């Protein structure tokens, strides 16, 4: 019974932590733009959270710089289970134009497991919303 309730609330209101791991700010601004009136993801119960301890979904933007590497893993560890990770933007997927730079790890999936990839440089807010919908589908089916 309780499990059903948690599953229901998880699907109806995923809380998101936005973590910039060295992105150029474009994806970050588009993530914020998704919260504002034109796109307004809050009507689906999606809420941006400030701390990893409250979050269900970590949205990572950026190609993971060496400085952010330890912090990214720490934030992932701090997030309570079950946790889901979205790699948002071409950088978080593979490194984008920065590929080959000395301070770049190149892709979030080299450090932590990723559930959904959202391509685009930068992503559009609608793409982000679709990514979240895909993630919710995945959670519903239980195929993590």
């Amino acid at each position, binding site marked *: 019974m309780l499990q059903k309730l948690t599953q229901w609330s998880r699907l109806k209101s995923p809380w998101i932590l*936005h*973590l*910039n*791991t*060295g*992105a*150029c*700010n*474009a*994806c*970050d*601004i*588009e*993530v*914020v*733009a998704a919260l*504002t*009136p*034109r796109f307004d993801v809050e009507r689906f119960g999606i809420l*941006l*959270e*400030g*701390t*990893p301890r409250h979050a269900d979904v970590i949205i990572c933007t*950026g*190609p993971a*710089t060496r*400085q*952010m590497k330890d*912090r990214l893993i720490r*934030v992932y560890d701090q997030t309570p289970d079950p946790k889901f990770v979205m790699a948002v933007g071409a950088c978080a997927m593979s490194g*984008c*134009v*920065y590929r*080959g*730079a*000395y*301070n*770049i790890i190149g892709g979030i999936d080299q450090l932590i497991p990723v559930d959904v990839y959202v391509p685009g*440089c*930068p992503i*559009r807010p609608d793409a982000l919303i679709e990514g979240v919908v895909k993630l919710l589908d995945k959670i519903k089916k239980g195929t993590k």
Partner: protein
Amino acid sequence: MSFEIPIGPQHPALKEPVGIRVTVDGEIIREADLRLGYNHRGVEKLAEQKTWTQNIYLMERICGICSHSHATCYVQGVEKLMEIEPPKRGLYIRILVSELERVHSHLLWLGVAGHEAGFDSFFMYVWRDREIVMDILETISGNRVHYGINAIGGVRRDLDEMQIKHILDSLEVLRQRSAYYEKLGTTEPSFVARLAGVGYLSKEEAISLCAVGPTLRASGVPMDVRKDDPYAVYGEVPFEVCTAETCDVLGRTVVRIKELMQSYNIIEFLLKNLPAGPIAVRAPRRAKPNEVVSRYEAPRGENIHYIKSNGSDKPERVKVRAPTLANYAATIKMLKNGFIADVPLIFAAIDPCICCAERSVAIVDARTEQEKIVTMSSLRELSLKMTKHQARKREAEWPL
């Protein structure tokens, strides 16, 4: 007793990783220290491995908000190195995009300032209208954020009559909305009272600490690269340099609102006087050995690119001095002797663009004293709590 509070690097209020270490005495900040490098990617080194044309797209991705600033600054420098002159129409379109970018950046900042001051409905309103600018940029360039409109020797896309009409129509809406925000700001005493007197930076300090952009202009120094050293077509465009005398966050807000109005005028002028002709000239693949310094007035202040060529199809050195980096010294000064609750507001007021500034790594030793981890969001709550029951400063005036 004083103790240190590290803020960040995970940073919900500003969306970018930066660490601030403040030493506090009760509520008052005695010492502040910035810890950088979380966003360092190695763009300058990477630029040496890419060709002149490839580098336009790399430079654009230094920053997502002022992407056109970096690309234009770089392209202007390369054009000087290659000794080519872009056609008039190309320059007009380039400057048009750059003014549209200034509008979207200032609107973005206005929203963030509203959010940090606890005026969230203002934030939502402003960001709704920012979508109008994003739509214009999308019709011109095909993308919302990284426009990719610059090419060496001109621009990549032309404007047609329909687009010009669409931009002029949208501009009318934006003008009305901005006038409304101006009015909203003037008649909203709690908003004015929250911003007035916060983050004081005197005129002398602003000059000696090399502040740039709206931060400098809000301290009463009329300095703008567009006026002082006109690049592209700014020599023939009529506009004013906006300043404020209050030297605080309120002044920085006023300067940005005034600049919005100026940008609308510039855009209208550019569209009405758009010359006919080609939009680009063919650029050579190599540049002769030489060096150049390129200046550009980005929304946040003066942007400088130093480019050195060695005769090949790749640059030998590209150095970027982003405006945020120039404003860091002034920020430390502004934070000192302020309240902890004002940190997000002061820090947001320079419109920091961490990704722009992070090309040099500063190494700071971690100190092992008593520490308390504070996130920006809890700081914001503290800031709201503190000012909630404060008596409204009736005498605070909006200096517009």
